[in-house]
Every structure is written in structure tokens, then in C-alpha cells.
């Protein structure tokens, strides 16, 4: 080994740089950079249509042609070359339209050709005003067309999906949309059809364009060919006011560009945030913004008089609320949900401790467990963004293991990022689950087969097999709370293997709620309420002499306490009962037992609801205090990475109610306390003062029961008592991205694109049941049955069955919120045993045969199963 080599290897690794000359100016860029991007470095925008920095080069539109007199080897190209496909080379000489007549001539020629068949309908086109083709034509095009022929026309528009319309005559066939679908989302349901001048974008006849990310193709279309059904003909781009803000629909933390006009949000676009959503977002974030503008918006306080909610003045409503709360004393519980900003969460956290004097606060309006509370205190709360896993880390990981997390449904941007890493960097993804979903297949994921409830054992197996090693990142979803031991096993696994762990909740406000201390055992910054130092630190910030020292009741215990059933297995609660509840941003159907939750809301002595819209909570409340929509207020969301995302005021109507912090401050005043914050700015300043907790954190102990004991529900409402045996399978389930959730109200086109509810069974189960693909299956739980069409999934393990947690309910014809969620109708949770049976379609018409079949089934079940399988 020579000395030189040693030096070379010791030299710090930095990206190799290439120097070239563009229009007479020298520029150095990393090796592999495309000419079109190198030109951007010196401020030259080479016109383009098909080029997109996040898509593979295509070279289709030819608009970006440049002259290359020297390719770096002393020889030039005789013809103009596309700058969007050619990487730079050392010593290369490039002449763009700025300095080259050839390049200018080539670009003019392409533009003229693009326009000969393009309709002159800019005045009525949605894209007019923000259209690259229009801009380019105005800047560089001919004043008068030389084309005397007939323009190509198509019947217009055609529907590509429930949300997207295509005007084919406007299309310049840049293939950005098809490349996005193929390369980014992995849903290649649209493609080029026909040939030559008849080329057009089309969808497969059998399967329409079915993608959670379809709206992105509207945004990246460089002309007005792909338009949003929801936005079409609603506004001109130059009349819209744009606001950069953060999406409220999940914990991914996408930046949005929200466009509004005259107090009305007209559309939302994906913002440009390379570290998070790059330039993409999901359809839920893009189209789900009409919910606040329905008939059910509440703008005036309501007070229940003589059993009826009636409009009241603010003073009256506040006085009534304060009277009720004072009567309850410390026997008040606070449920804050997962949709609030950090600032609002902090106001609630402080309100509960300082004004109400209780630790009875919980944001988890969903399936949760005491194990999860400990996990959050020990692993999530009080962590900075710097020490948390990031999107970038996912791309650079050696492997990503998904536990109780289906990213495409539960955190779509994580899905996009994992798929990108899988495609570009061959990132191996391992899914602990019952089957490989469409999303898993698109990521090329491997399945670690595991029945719901046995995730802890699966994690142990992965560590033993060295699948989880020091370069692995484990992502665990909030559903893990339904699987006892899973969270503890995940912590153990990453500790043993030296891997990293991140918790991925579903809602935008979840991480912020943890950090703000909207948990019965945590103060802001991850401070345990039981730790005197933690209380002193928090008290100092809040100018409070004392803070309640006992761990409060969690959501399930509060509701159980209202219903009078003692919280099982826990120590005798300090507060004997809950006499009043304060609830904000919570849907009862999200709780483990929706029916019991509703009953508790009926029975509780006093109920104060802070809400934007009429809900099952406001309907049962004694006082309803209206609060501002997210688009009318500002704040911060912390995404799953702990990354702050600014929420900005999009638009305020004259009748906008106060925001939640202001309402809480008013309540505090009337209670004789001072919340210390009246505005988002003040709350944010208070938030900024909080340092992460440096003291001891709770340890996760092995929960009772040990690994693989099956499902249990933290709130303990549902005894999982379906009799085992024939037809009994364990339920795997999660909430799909698009369902009947309230956040999608008003977005009818979006709701129409929701995936239909199905029941996924293994081939073995299908054979046993005697059902084929698409045939109805009856799923039965303790509370009832639903019928769903069967999907026979070859990757599904025997012993498990999958269905969506909520629906949409296909039988009811789409996502109507009137119908209770699927799991509520069955009375089940993920991990519960359910009973499956084939639906006898023709029982009525052919009784004799049906009778015979049943008789056979009775005498010999195994044979009958085989027979039925054969017949199917």
C-alpha cells in the first residue's frame, strides 16, 4: 500500500464536484447533476415541462434543449441536447437560450409545436394564471400562429378518478402524472394510450385510478389537463391568497399551501418542505378541508335549559360552565383528543392542573393502555427533534421494521418516504403483521407473520434472527396500545440490538399533547407528576405554588368512573368519581367502547364541550363553547419526528369564534384563576420556556400476562369472549386513510374514492368457508354481525382475518357517519376473536339443496369444508 493511497482513503469524503461553463460563467456542482439544475445555480431557468426534480428524467417534451459545443472531451454535440436528461461533465461548455441562437431556435420550435394543438381556452382554464405553458407562450411564443390546420380535439373532460378530470386536448404528454404514479406512489393505474398524435393519458378500463396520492398529479401537471373536480371553475389563481401552513389530518406534518378567496378556502396544495413531505401530500390533506363549513358549525355558545341546548351569551355560558365546574370541585376530567395544537394542548394542560387542580387529563380518545402511558413517559415525552428519528433517518436506515403500523393508511408520507428509499436505495422493510398489504407490496416489504396481539413475540424473534440490528429503525404505531407487551418488547428489542425506535401516532396533535402533558401522569416536557422536582420546575414556570401530585385518571378510568364501575386492576383511585367532564375535539366513536363512552357522557353530572361543530359530545353537553377552526387560528403541530410545523391563520371571518386558548383563559378568569395566556403568541412563548425533563423517567415493566396472551383492551370494557373453535379468528384491523371520519365531511369526491370495506382472509380460511373472491362473508363479534365481500389474500396467515376498523360500509352505500363504525357494530377491537361464516346466497330459492349441504357440514366439517372449497 503506497502512502498516496493511504492519504486518499483518509481524505474526508465529500461529494465530487464538477466544474463546467454555462453561458460563459463557470459553475461547480456535484457530480451527476443535470445540466438544467446546474443552470439554476447561476440563475438561468431553462424552460421545461416534463422535467421534475423528484421524478426520473424523461426527455419527452424537448423544451429544455441547449447547445453543447463541448461535452467536456473537446467534442461537441452537433444537435441541441435536452438539458433535463444530460448530467454535467468536467470542462463541459453549455450554451442555453441566453447565449445560443441554436438553443433559442430549438426552444421556440418546440414551443410552437406544443401550441399547434393546444386549445386557446386559457380564460376558462383552471391553470390559466399559473400555467407554465401559458407563461412560456406569453414570454417566448409567437404573436401569431403559423399553424393553419385543424386542432386535435377530444370529448371533454373525462373522469380519471373521483377527484380528477382530464381535458385531453390540453395535455402536452409530459408524462409527469404517469411517472408520479409509477415512481412515487406506486399506483400505476394511468398510462399512455394510443400512439403518435392520438396519444393520450388514460386509465385502465377495469380499474380506475385508485391512489391515496392522486391529487399530486393535478399539482404537477404543467398545463390545465388534469384538474380537480372540487376546485374546477371555482377561482382564478390570481384572485387567491396563499398561506403556508401545516396539515391537520395526521402526524406526518406536511406543509400545505392553502389558497382562499373571500373567507372561503378554495383548495389546498402540497407545500415544498424537502425534509418532510418533499413536494407531495396525500388526498386527505389535499381535499379534506370542507368539514368546517358545513351546516353543523357552531358559532354561538349553547347552554342547556330545560333539557334543551339553547343559544346563550358568552357571559351566560361562561357563568354556567363555571358554576358546574365549581360544583364538581376536583372531580373533573379533561379529554382533549389528538387534534389540538401544541399551544392549545399546553393551555389545557395548565388549565387542568392550575384551574381545576387535577391530573385527570388524557388526550387519548382511542384504544389506549396504562402500558402505553408509561411508554410515552419513558420514550416519547420530553424528547427533542434532534434525538428523535427523522424522515431522513428512515431513508438512510439499514432496515425499517413496522409494528402495528400501516403507513399508507396511517401515515402516508412515511409510506412515500419508505417506498422512495426502497426503490432508490433498496431499503429493506419488514412488516410485523398478518399479511402484506398493497402498501407493503409497493415497498417490497417482507412479512414477519404474526397474529394480532403477538407482536411482542415477533419482535423477540426478529432480534434473535438479527433482522433487527444496530442500523435498524423500528416504527411502532399507536395501535400497539391494543397489544399488551408490544410497546415494552419494542423498547427491549431496540435496546438489545442497539437499534432506534419511533412512535408514530395517527393524529396531528398527538405528539404535541404528549409534550404538553395532556396525560394523567405527565407535566409538560415529559415531567412525571409524581416527581417533586418536576412539579417545582413546572410550578416555577406557571407561577403556581402547588400542583396536584397524584397520577390522575386516564380516559378509560374517567369514563368507567362515571359509569360507576371500578377501574379494574388499578389501585383505588384517589378521586372517587368524576362529576364533570370537559371535552374538546373528541369523537366518542374513537374510544375503545363507543357505546359505553356515549353512556358516560349521558350520565356525567356536568359536561362542558369546546367544539367547532355539532357532535355526539355537544349533543350531550350542558354548555357548548364554540371555538375557532384551525384555518382561523395559528399554532404549532409537532409531527411524529417532534418537528414543529407552523399553523398560520388562513382566513378569519367576521363571525369567527374565539380560539380555544382565549376561551380557556376566560373560563379561568371566571374561576378566579389566571391561566397566564390569552393568545396563541403568549401560549407559544410559554411553550418555548419549557426545557425537556432531565430527571428520572418511568421504567417500562413487563406487563402482566407476558408475551402473546392475545388481545386486551386497556379500558377493559370489552371482555373478549367470543367462543373459540370453528370459524373463530383473530381480528387484524386499522383505520383506513379515507373512511367516514368527520374530517372528510363535505369532501364528497374524496369520500367517493375511499377503498371499499372488505374482509381479507387467507386461502385456507376461504376454502374452509367455501367462499371465493368477492363473495359475502358474515363477520360476527359479541355485539353483532356485518357482511363484507371476501378478499382472498395469499399472504394472509391462517388464524387471522382483516377488516377496516371503521368502514366505509359498502352495504350502506358509502361513508355515511350515521352508520356506526364496523368495529362498534361487532363490539370488537384489534386482536379480538371474531367468527366468520359464509353467507348462504340462495338459501331461500333452493332450500332442499341448502339443507343437504348443511347436513353434510354437520356430519363432517372437514369434508364439508373441502367440498365447499371445490364447489367455489
Amino acid at each position: 500500500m503506497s502512502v498516496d493511497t493511504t492519504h486518499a482513503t483518509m481524505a474526508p469524503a465529500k461529494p465530487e464536484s464538477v466544474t463546467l461553463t454555462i453561458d460563459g460563467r463557470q459553475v461547480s456542482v456535484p457530480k451527476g447533476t443535470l445540466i438544467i439544475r446546474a443552470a439554476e445555480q447561476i440563475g438561468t431557468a431553462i424552460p421545461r415541462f416534463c422535467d421534475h426534480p423528484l421524478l426520473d428524467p424523461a426527455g419527452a417534451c424537448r423544451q429544455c434543449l441547449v447547445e453543447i459545443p463541448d461535452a467536456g472531451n473537446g467534442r461537441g454535440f452537433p444537435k441541441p441536447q435536452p438539458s433535463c436528461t444530460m448530467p454535467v461533465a468536467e470542462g463541459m461548455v453549455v450554451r442555453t437560450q441566453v447565449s445560443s441562437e441554436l438553443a433559442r431556435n430549438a426552444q421556440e420550435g418546440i414551443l410552437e409545436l406544443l401550441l399547434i394543438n393546444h386549445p386557446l381556452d386559457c380564460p376558462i382554464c383552471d391553470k390559466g394564471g399559473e400555467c407554465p405553458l401559458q407563461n412560456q407562450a406569453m414570454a417566448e411564443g409567437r404573436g401569431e400562429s403559423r399553424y393553419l390546420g385543424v386542432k386535435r380535439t377530444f370529448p371533454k373532460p373525462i373522469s380519471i378518478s373521483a377527484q380528477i378530470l382530464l381535458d385531453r386536448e390540453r395535455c402536452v404528454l409530459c408524462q409527469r402524472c404517469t411517472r408520479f404514479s409509477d415512481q412515487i406512489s406506486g399506483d400505476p393505474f394511468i398510462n399512455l394510450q394510443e400512439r403518435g398524435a392520438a396519444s393520450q393519458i388514460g386509465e385502465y378500463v377495469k380499474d380506475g385510478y385508485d391512489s391515496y396520492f392522486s391529487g399530486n398529479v393535478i399539482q404537477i401537471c404543467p398545463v390545465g389537463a388534469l384538474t380537480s373536480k372540487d376546485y374546477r371553475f371555482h377561482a382564478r389563481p390570481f384572485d387567491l391568497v396563499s398561506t403556508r401552513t401545516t396539515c391537520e389530518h395526521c402526524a406526518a406534518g406536511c406543509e400545505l399551501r392553502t389558497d382562499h378567496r373571500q373567507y372561503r378556502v378554495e383548495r389546498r396544495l402540497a407545500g415544498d418542505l424537502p425534509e418532510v413531505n418533499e413536494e407531495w401530500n396525500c388526498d386527505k390533506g389535499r381535499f379534506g378541508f370542507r368539514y368546517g363549513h358545513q351546516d353543523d358549525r357552531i358559532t354561538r355558545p349553547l347552554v342547556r335549559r330545560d333539557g334543551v341546548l339553547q343559544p346563550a351569551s358568552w357571559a351566560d355560558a361562561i357563568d354556567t360552565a363555571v358554576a358546574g365546574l365549581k360544583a364538581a370541585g376536583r372531580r373533573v376530567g379533561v379529554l382533549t383528543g389528538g387534534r389540538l395544537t401544541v399551544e392549545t394542548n399546553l393551555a389545557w394542560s395548565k388549565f387542568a392542573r392550575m384551574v381545576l387542580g387535577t391530573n385527570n387529563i388524557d388526550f387519548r380518545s382511542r384504544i389506549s393502555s396504562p402500558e402505553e402511558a408509561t411508554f410515552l413517559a419513558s420514550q416519547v415525552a420530553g424528547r427533542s427533534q434532534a434525538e428523535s428519528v427523522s424522515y431522513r433517518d428512515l431513508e438512510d436506515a439499514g432496515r425499517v421494521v413496522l409494528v402495528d403500523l400501516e403507513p399508507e393508511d396511517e401515515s402516508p408520507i412515511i409510506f412515500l418516504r419508505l417506498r422512495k428509499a426502497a426503490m432508490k436505495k433498496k431499503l429493506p422493510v419488514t412488516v410485523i403483521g398478518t399479511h402484506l398489504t398493497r402498501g407493503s407490496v409497493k415497498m417490497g416489504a417482507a412479512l414477519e407473520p404474526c397474529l394480532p396481539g403477538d407482536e411482542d413475540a415477533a419482535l423477540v424473534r426478529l432480534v434473535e434472527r438479527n433482522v433487527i440490528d444496530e442500523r435498524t429503525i423500528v416504527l411502532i404505531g399507536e395501535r400497539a396500545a391494543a397489544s399488551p407487551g408490544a410497546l415494552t418488547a419494542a423498547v427491549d428489542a431496540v435496546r438489545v440490538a442497539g437499534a432506534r425506535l419511533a412512535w408514530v401516532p395517527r393524529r396531528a396533535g398527538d405528539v404535541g399533547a404528549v409534550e404538553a402533558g395532556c396525560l394523567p401522569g405527565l407535566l409538560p416536557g415529559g415531567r412525571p407528576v409524581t416527581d417533586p422536582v418536576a412539579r417545582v420546575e413546572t410550578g416555577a414556570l406557571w407561577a403556581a405554588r402547588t400542583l396536584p401530585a397524584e397520577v390522575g385518571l386516564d380516559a378509560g378510568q374517567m369514563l368507567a368512573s362515571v359509569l360507576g364501575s371500578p377501574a379494574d386492576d388499578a389501585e383505588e383511585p384517589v378521586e372517587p368519581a368524576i362529576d364533570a367532564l370537559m371535552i374538546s375535539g373528541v369523537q366518542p366513536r374513537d374510544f375503545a367502547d363507543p357505546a359505553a363512552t356515549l353512556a358516560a357522557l349521558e350520565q356525567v353530572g356536568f359536561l362542558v364541550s369546546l367544539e367547532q361543530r355539532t357532535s355526539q359530545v355537544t349533543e350531550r353537553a350542558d354548555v357548548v363553547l364554540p371555538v375557532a377552526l384551525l384555518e382561523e387560528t395559528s399554532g404549532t403541530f409537532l409531527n411524529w419526528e417532534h418537528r414543529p410545523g407552523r399553523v398560520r391563520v388562513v382566513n378569519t371571518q367576521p363571525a369567527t369564534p374565539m380560539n380555544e386558548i382565549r376561551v380557556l383563559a376566560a373560563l379561568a378568569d371566571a374561576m378566579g384563576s389566571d391561566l397566564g395566556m390569552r393568545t396563541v403568541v403568549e401560549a407559544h412563548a410559554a411553550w418555548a420556556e419549557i426545557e425537556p425533563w432531565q430527571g428520572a423517567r418511568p421504567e417500562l415493566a413487563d406487563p402482566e400476562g407476558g408475551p402473546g396472551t392475545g388481545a386486551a383492551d386497556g379500558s377493559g370494557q370489552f371482555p373478549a369472549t367470543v367462543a373459540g373453535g370453528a370459524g373463530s379468528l383473530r381480528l387484524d384491523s386499522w383505520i383506513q386513510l379515507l373512511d367516514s371520519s368527520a374530517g372528510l365531511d363535505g369532501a364528497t369526491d374524496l369520500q367517493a374514492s375511499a377503498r371499499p370495506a372488505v374482509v381479507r382472509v387467507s386461502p385456507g380460511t376461504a376454502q374452509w368457508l367455501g367462499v371465493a373472491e368477492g363473495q359475502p362473508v358474515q363477520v360476527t363479534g359479541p355485539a353483532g354481525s356485518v357482511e363484507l365481500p371476501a378478499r382472498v389474500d395469499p399472504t394472509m396467515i391462517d388464524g387471522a382475518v382483516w377488516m377496516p376498523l371503521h368502514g366505509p360500509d359498502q352495504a350502506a352505500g358509502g361513508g355515511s357517519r350515521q352508520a356506526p363504525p364496523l368495529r362498534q357494530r361487532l363490539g370488537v377491537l384489534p386482536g379480538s376473536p371474531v367468527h366468520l361464516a359464509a353467507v348462504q346466497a340462495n338459501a331461500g330459492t333452493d332450500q332442499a339443496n341448502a339443507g343437504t349441504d348443511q347436513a353434510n357440514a354437520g356430519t363432517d366439517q372437514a369434508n364439508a369444508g373441502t367440498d365447499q372449497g371445490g364447489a367455489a
Partner: protein
Amino acid sequence: MSEDAVTLEMAQGSSPLTPVLSANWDDPRAWKLVNYERRDGYRGLRTALGMAPDDVISLVKEAGLRGRGGAGFPAGLKWSFIPKDNPNPTYLVVNCDESEPGTCKDMPLLMASPHTLVEGAIIASYAVHAKVAFLYVRGEVLHIIRRLQQAVREAYSAGYLGSDILGSGYDLDIIVHAGAGAYICGEETALLDSLEGRRGQPRLRPPFPAVAGLYASPTVVNNAETISSVPAILTHGKDWFQSMGTEKSAGFTLFSLSGHVANPGQYEAPLGITLAQLLQISGGMRAGHQLKFFTPGGSSTPMFSAAEVNVPLDYESVAGAGSILGTKALQCFDETTSVVRTVLRWMEFYKHESCGKCTPCREGTWWMVQMLRRIEAGEGRPGDVDKLLDVNERIGGRSFCTLADGAVGCVRGAVKNFRDEFEAGCNGVPAWQLLPYERSTVFSDEDLDSRVGATA
């Protein structure tokens, strides 16, 4: 017919023709293995299997065999580009998707002697270490597909294909694949996409097929005639091959005479022969007519006027005269022919066959057809010829692949040589008045009269 003429000339011993590929075409049932073997068939393969694969490449390289599909890239050099350290398998793909207007050399070759191609494919595959070779044939020529399939079947039975070929330890499978009738699939990367089951559109290069071709693996793509020329080189050696043709364009090749010639057909001759010589051999233009213009290598190659009849038909000379040797499809047109009409028909072909991927080709051919139709009908406006040329030049050299270059090439050559015919169309004279179309049918006036009478 034409073969009769060739045979006749050969018998006279004075012909410059060199039938190698076509030598056995007149044999009875030449396409059967037994008859091919009787003519020393598969001798070249036996020679090749006795050599190291790299020596086969060297031999073909030194012989100077250049691609017969149009571009004229040295075949041996192309084979030597296949990386040795790529873990993926290597493939040979033979382009039998002949579909250019005027080009008609591969189809007769595969029809008459499919084993020539099969043998060549085995030798080429051996040289580049391919275990699988694909013969991509245009879908319309069903009869030829069957002949090829039959030949491959026969080769398997005789032990020329399959495992341990002729005891050499070398294994090869050949798959005959029928295209779906798209001109663009003759472009090598579009062909690969089509072979993979995708929409046939040209791919971005680099990576070149030699590095990442079929299924992202190293791939050699050669024309059918190129591969078919390989066995003879193995049998007779490189010196024999170089004894024919010119220094840089060695060897024999098929020249396809068509159009207003007395005896259309395939004429196999050394590169560097002139059209004048070929016309002399073949019997000249149809009786009573003179050559007006011709294409040296199919419609994509800018046309030559009668003045260029003595240009040697080799790669360098044709390029030096401003065109491309292309596929050596010599379409000859006599003085009755309307150049406007001819170019319009060709442009309609390119418009129909444009794949639609890139703007200049998709939109340009659409526009050019409309302009040419107006000029043909005498409805052009003054200045339209310049506009035609300007648009033409804004298409040429700016498209994704060379399909559009072919389209603009024919317009460029036509206007350069026969501008007055286009100007006439811009001055109210329809092409069919200037040069009545019925006069340019391939039949003599007497024939035409008698045929019209017969069908009337």
C-alpha cells in the same frame, strides 16, 4: 424472378454480384434444415464452438462486419462492449422488425433461409456469453414467424440449440417473439421495452443496451442481416470477407431494388456497388422511362436524384453525398412520379408510426402532413415551402429518437432536389395535375390499358 436474373448473371461469370446470404434461396425447400446443412449449413457454428468466445468477437471485429440495420456500427465492436463483470445474464436480441417503407431485405432472407439467422444467432450468443437469445419479428409477417419457429424447432432437434450444443458445453435457448406491428419497435430500445411487455417507446440513453438493456441486463441488439452474415465469416474467414466491398465497408450485402425498375428484387453485392451497376445488372428502369430519384436506404434516407446514380453504395460514400446508406432499400422512381405525393405518403407513414413520446415528432409529423396535403392539392400559399423547411428543421435533430430525423430527411432531400414541384403546389397547381398519378403506376401504359379493360 430477380433470383433468376441473378442466377443468370452468375452463370455468365461476369457479374459483380456475390450471393452468399441469398445463395441458397432458389434451392427447393431451402428453409429446411436438411437442405441448409447440405450447403455447409452450421459449419460456421462448429468453427465458432472450437474457438474461444473472445476470438469469435475478434474475428468478426477484424473482418469489419458493420451493422446492416442502417447505422453501420461495427458489429464486433458492439459485442466487445458487453461488460464481463456484470452479475446479470447477457442477452442477444435480433431485430427482425423490418418495417421501413421500401425496406424489404430481412423478410425474404428469413422466408427463404431462416437457418442462416438461427446459426448466426447461436454464434453471436456464444461470443457474448448469452444463454438466451430473442428473435423479435414484426407481427404482421405471420408466415415468416412460422418459418423461424420451425427452424428453431429443427435446430433444437439437431442439437444446435438447448443444452450442451454439439458437445461444447455451451447452452442456449432461442425465443421467437412476434411484435405487434409498430415501426418504432424497430428502434432498439423501444424494441427492448416491447419485448419486456411494455409500451414500445424509446428509452433514455445512457445506459446503453450493452450495459443495461433487456431486463436491465447487458444486451446485444443486432439487425437480422448482420447476424445472418456471421456464419459465412466463420466458414470462410475474415480475408474472404474483406475481399469484398471497400476498405471501411467490407463484405457483401443485400440491395433491395423496388419501384419503377424492370426487375425488382434482392441483389446481393459487395458494398460500394453503384445503382447504375445494379440497374445494369437487373435490367434497368421500366421500359421507356428514366430514373428521376431514388432512396439509397429506405424512405428515411434523404433521396438522391438521377445525378447521384454513380455514388458508390457504401457507408462513407453515401454519407459524403449527403444521405445515409441505411437499409440499402433502393426505391427507384421514374420521371412520371410526383415528389410531393411521394413525400406526403411517407410523411403520413411517419405520422402514423410516431410513438407520441416527444413533442417534435408527435406534433411535427402531424403538422407536416397537413402542410403537404395542402401543397399536394395546390392549396399552398406563397412562402409555404420555406415554412415547410423551417418547421422541418425545427423537428430534425431535436426529437427523442431518430424516427423524426427520418421523417425530416425525406422532406429535406425532396425539396433540395425538386423544389419547383412544391412551389407549384403553392401556386395553385395540384400535384395530380402536374404529374398525373396514373402514369406512375408500375405497369406500362399498354399493361394498364389491358388491365383496365379486363376488369371493366
